[in-house]
Each structure stands twice: as C-alpha cells, then as structure tokens.
C-alpha cells in the first residue's frame, strides 16, 4: 500500500525524487505518512483538499480489498 501512495504522489508532484512514504503499523490500522517537497504540498492536497480526498478514497478502496484499514497523513 506504501507503493500505491508513492506511485500516486510521484505522478502528482514536480519533484518525484523527494517523495517518501513511511508505514506505521498499528493493530487495527496502518498509518501511511507521506512526505513531499514543500513546494509540492499543494499538488498532493489540492484545492479544498480535493486531491488528498481522492487519494484517500483510492487508498480506502484498495485497503478494503485486503480487509485492512489505512490512514493517509500528509506531513508538512
């Protein structure tokens, strides 16, 4: 799932080499922490958070297939 977020973020940003994702595994849920170059923050969040919301929808659907919950945190 880390690779999914990496793939989406790298496609969205101007500096794909600055994209990193860290998975923090909890008991019920895995948190995926996404870091991008500060100038790319807007590209992964989007207007009124629409891009971030869309990424979360994709992540949620992919997690559902694995019967697991994932949370995306975008770190500044």
């Amino acid at each position, binding site marked *: 799932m880390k690779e*999914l977020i*990496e793939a989406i973020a790298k496609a969205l940003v101007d500096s794909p080499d600055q994209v990193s994702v860290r998975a923090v595994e909890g008991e019920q849920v895995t948190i995926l922490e996404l870091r991008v170059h500060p100038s790319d923050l807007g*590209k992964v969040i989007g207007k009124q958070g629409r891009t971030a919301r869309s990424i979360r929808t*994709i992540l949620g659907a992919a997690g559902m297939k*694995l019967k697991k919950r994932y949370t995306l945190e975008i770190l500044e």
Partner: protein
Amino acid sequence: MESQAGATSSALESYLPRIESVLREILRQGGFHLSAAVRKGKLAVEGMEPPEFVVDLSGPDAEALLQKHAALLDALEYVVLRAVRLDEGLFGRITFDCQDWRWLRAQELQLAARVAAERVLETGDPFALNPMNARERRIVHLALKNQPKVRTLSEGFGPERRVVIHPAPPASHGAPRS
C-alpha cells in the same frame, strides 16, 4: 464552446498515453482488477457535448468502482487528470467511465430534477436536492434551464454544496395562471 472543443481535440489526444500509464500504475499498485481502454465519447447528455475521450474501465472490480455514487471512479479520474496536468477547464472533455455510469447517472439526475421542479410548482416552496459535485450540479441546472417557472441555485460549500430549486418570481401580476 465549439471552437474550444475543435481546437483541443488533438491537444487532448496527446494526454492519453500518459493518462493510461499513470492509471495502469495506480491500478496495479492498488491491486485493482480493472483494465482501461480509451474510446471516443459518444453518449451525449441532453444539452451537453459528449466528452472527446472516455477512459473506460472494466473488470471484476467494476462494482467497487461504482459504489457510493462512483466515488472511486471519480477519485481515479481526478488524481490521474491532475497528475497529467490537464487544464481543469478541460476535465469534462476526458472522462473516466464504467458501464456507462456517467450517462445513466445523468438520466437519473435529470429525472430527479424534473420531479423536484414539479414538487416546487405544487407546493410553492424551494426544494433542496442532495449534495452533488460540480459536474452533477451542472446537469441539474441544465435540465431545468428551459423551465421558466423555477430557477435553480447552487447553495452551500464544499462537499455540502447542492442545487436548490426555487419557484421563479411571477413575470407579472396580471399574467393568467394555469
């Protein structure tokens, strides 16, 4: 509108290879059993131009794609079109679809709009439809554009924004009512 559509057809086509590769990568990494095929848009919603190109998704996960008013389909479309840097003004020209969902949903919205308008005419009270995204609100506005007895307004913010149908103010007090 026509001139814009004509001028952008080949420009739009140049986005397709990148759209397909970004989409395939997301589908692969997400473990979605879906494949994508690009075709020319053909089904036009009444009063609207058909999209230039349709990215048609199909496969065992089609059902997941269309759940919750096609939330996943919309999310994939938005992320991929953003990723390829398509101008947002052209987002309706390339659409993602599955089992003609867009067209069927438009039929549903047009019917809902007409039923709600009749209700407004009967009761004289405004009627608020469910919250919708900009694309769906536009379909509702267009569906009632030629209905002079009501007017439609979008009200609210963000994901709560919805179309409210109001009775149109009478054109003149002396006009006969039917």
